[in-house]
């Protein structure tokens, strides 16, 4: 490599140059931006699917979608939101911020970084193409349970399998890159236990990804074999077992839950201290808690399968392990609350989203503990109570953390302050919309409404109408988010200082806003 390192690239001229610049970029900030914009787009597409579902469920009776298309929407909504919206958004923040936080010039493997990102739009195109295929798009839910997803599935399922492989490949490469970067590229003096907690959260997440993504790949490959090559992994008629699929899927699926929520924990643990003007309480225990959660995540998967008829001994074991998760998670919540305790709090948009995260994520955690009790789970399982539970941890949980982080770092990334008033509108409408949408779902589930139904009996009408109303408020609120982001991207707003926030601490705030394209080409000094 005899190139000289240019510190700033000239703005590309012409369409082709512009495409080339972004297509071939190996810069962690540019790839981070790509990840963030891509996940924003997917968030809106997945959101439109969700709104179609809520529109259909606004009143009982066939209204808008036929049941067949409804099932395609529930499937697509789940897959798009998990694999193409939530996971990439955290990869985006990891790409942008981890090198800045640890004082590294870039990610350890910039070319692989580029590849890991560009696989995703391809996977998305393959996935969306199924919507236009003969037969139908995948219609068996994002969990893809056999034999509904094998013998009984539409031909387009093969495209879904390919898309899942691609998304898995992308996640794996991203994970390897993050691990190598964190372990090797920290500035001298930055020991592991001095590292910002967001980096720790991603380090743990990356190991989880490496451990479970291959399991998902194996499961969907077995699906493919059952569909086309006369194997019977998941068919009892040929000596297989439909439950084998569920075991494999949830052995991936449960750690996946923590793959999604751990980076969110990391982000919240960065933001709350900043706006409390006080150091994160119990840094060490926060790190240990994440390690314990990661360990436990591998031995709780059967709690997704309590009604499948697993033996008593297994039900007891997985009930106890699932309940145990409340302990490290509790430690995290208590530490956030104690961080705020006797701080000097101010309530800018990132802090508002973080506070909502702590409260609403905890509510999702509560229903999680209730779900762990096996006998009670027999009533909750596959009902709207579960839908309420996981949406509380995913939407005001993971998604709010991503929104908080967007507002937190947007001034750093773009160099201008976002519009605080628009941010607050966005927050309050979102928080009202989210609770109107998901809180009544607890009631619906307890009253007996199963999930993934295209139509329902009259007793569920009232809360479904409220829920749909909330969903549209939440959807509308996101237009403010878009406006805020676009304004910042085009440089509208006050010039941001390097430090941006009064209470901000960490290496990324020592750089200018926006930081130069190539930062920390010589490692910073850590005292």
């Amino acid at each position, binding site marked *: 490599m005899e190139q000289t390192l240019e510190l700033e690239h000239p703005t590309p001229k012409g369409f082709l140059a512009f495409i080339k610049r972004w297509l071939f970029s190996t810069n962690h900030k540019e790839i981070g931006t790509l990840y963030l914009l891509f996940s924003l787009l997917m968030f809106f597409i997945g959101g439109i699917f969700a709104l179609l579902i809520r529109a259909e469920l606004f009143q009982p009776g066939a209204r808008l979608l036929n049941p067949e298309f409804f099932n395609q929407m529930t499937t697509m909504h789940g897959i798009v939101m998990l694999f193409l919206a939530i996971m990439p958004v955290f990869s985006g923040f990891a790409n942008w911020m981890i090198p800045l936080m640890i004082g590294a010039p870039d990610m350890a493997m910039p070319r692989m970084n580029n590849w890991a990102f560009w696989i995703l739009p391809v996977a998305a195109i393959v996935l969306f193409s199924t919507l236009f295929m003969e037969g139908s798009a995948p219609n068996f839910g994002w969990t893809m*349970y056999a*034999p509904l997803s094998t013998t009984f599935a539409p031909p387009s399922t093969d495209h879904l399998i390919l898309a899942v492989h691609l998304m898995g490949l992308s996640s794996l490469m991203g994970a390897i890159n993050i691990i190598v970067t964190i372990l090797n590229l920290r500035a001298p003096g930055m020991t592991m236990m001095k590292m910002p907690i967001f980096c720790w959260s991603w380090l743990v997440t990356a190991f989880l990804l490496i451990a479970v993504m291959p399991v998902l790949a194996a499961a969907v490959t077995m699906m493919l074999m059952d569909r086309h090559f006369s194997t019977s992994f998941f068919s009892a*008629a040929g000596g297989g077992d*439909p439950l084998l699929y569920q075991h494999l899927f949830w052995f991936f699926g449960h750690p996946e839950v923590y793959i999604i929520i751990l980076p969110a924990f990391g982000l919240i643990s960065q933001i709350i201290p900043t706006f409390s003007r*006080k150091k994160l309480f119990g840094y060490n225990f926060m790190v240990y808690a994440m390690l314990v959660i990661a360990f436990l995540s591998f031995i709780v998967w059967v709690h997704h399968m309590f009604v499948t008829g697993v033996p008593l001994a297994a039900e007891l074991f997985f009930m106890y392990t699932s309940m145990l998760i409340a302990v490290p998670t509790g*430690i995290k919540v208590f530490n956030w609350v104690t961080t705020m305790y006797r701080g000097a709090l101010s309530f800018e948009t990132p802090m508002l989203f973080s506070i909502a995260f702590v409260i609403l994520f905890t509510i999702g955690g509560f229903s999680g*503990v209730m779900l762990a009790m096996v006998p*009670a789970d027999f009533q909750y399982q596959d009902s709207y109570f579960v839908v309420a539970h996981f949406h509380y941890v995913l939407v005001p949980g993971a998604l709010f953390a991503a929104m908080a982080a967007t507002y937190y770092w947007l001034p750093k990334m773009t160099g201008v302050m976002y519009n605080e008033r628009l941010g607050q509108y966005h927050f309050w409408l979102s928080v009202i919309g989210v609770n109107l949408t998901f809180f009544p779902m607890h009631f619906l589930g307890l*009253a007996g409404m199963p999930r993934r139904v295209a139509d329902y*009996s009259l007793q569920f009408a009232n809360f479904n109408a409220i829920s749909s109303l909330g969903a549209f408020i939440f959807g509308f609120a996101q237009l403010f988010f878009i406006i805020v982001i676009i304004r910042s991207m085009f440089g509208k707003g006050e010039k941001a200082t390097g430090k941006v926030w009064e209470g901000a601490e960490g290496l990324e705030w020592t750089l200018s806003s926006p930081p130069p394209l190539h930062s920390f080409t010589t490692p910073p000094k850590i005292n």
Partner: protein
Amino acid sequence: MVLNYFKISVFIIRLGLFFSPLSALAAWQTNMSRGVTPLSHAIYNLHMLGFWICVGIAVVVFSIMLFSLIRHRKSRGVEPAQFHEHPVLEIVWAIVPFIILLTMAIPATKTLIKMNDNSNPELTIKVTAYQWRWRYAYLDQGIDFFSNLSTPVEELQNRAKKNTWYLLEVDHPLVVPVHKKIRFLFTSNDVIHSWWLPTLGIKRDTIPGFINESWARIDEEGTYRGQCAELCGTNHAFMPIVVRAVSESAFNQWIKQQLGDSAHGTNT
């Protein structure tokens, strides 16, 4: 004008129907029903125990948080404190939740063991799931029939007013006696379904090629309704479960009638 008034009044009536509590149904039901079996009562009690424990923890944690949010605001001119670790505190708030979890785990374990005792049934019913209906077989009585959704298509397509039991009505309900231990065997003919009857506290997946079991002893006579709970294809929302629990003599009468009917070839 007339048309407009007509439209408006229809709209108002619809709105009224929409918000008026439906007489026979708990339209604003917010909690789990207690059900009609000893096990469903046990489940309900566990659910409420879990709920109140969560409420208790929420009140404590959120009060402290709210206190900080109000008192420790920068706008009040407070100076941030400097403390940032306290290992003893960390260990305390790991142990306390652990003990609280034990108070949930112990009754849950007891209930679960009771639930798994499928021994000595007085009646055995095999439930086979099909896309998209249920088939019930009384193994010792030799009765076997399908149970299909009976809601008229006009109601599904909004061409007729929906009746009270819209989507929760079938042509042949399952008839069972009260005060008897009934064992259910579950299997499926095609994909995985799930037989969920909230009032009996039973939800079991029906898996093709495998047999699951569960049991119930129903205390009260009545008609109980549930649905398939596992996504099973296009008409997943349209395979309800209706169980009529009747007295023993009425049940015996029903059995006789069914056997007579099938001898004459009128039932399938």
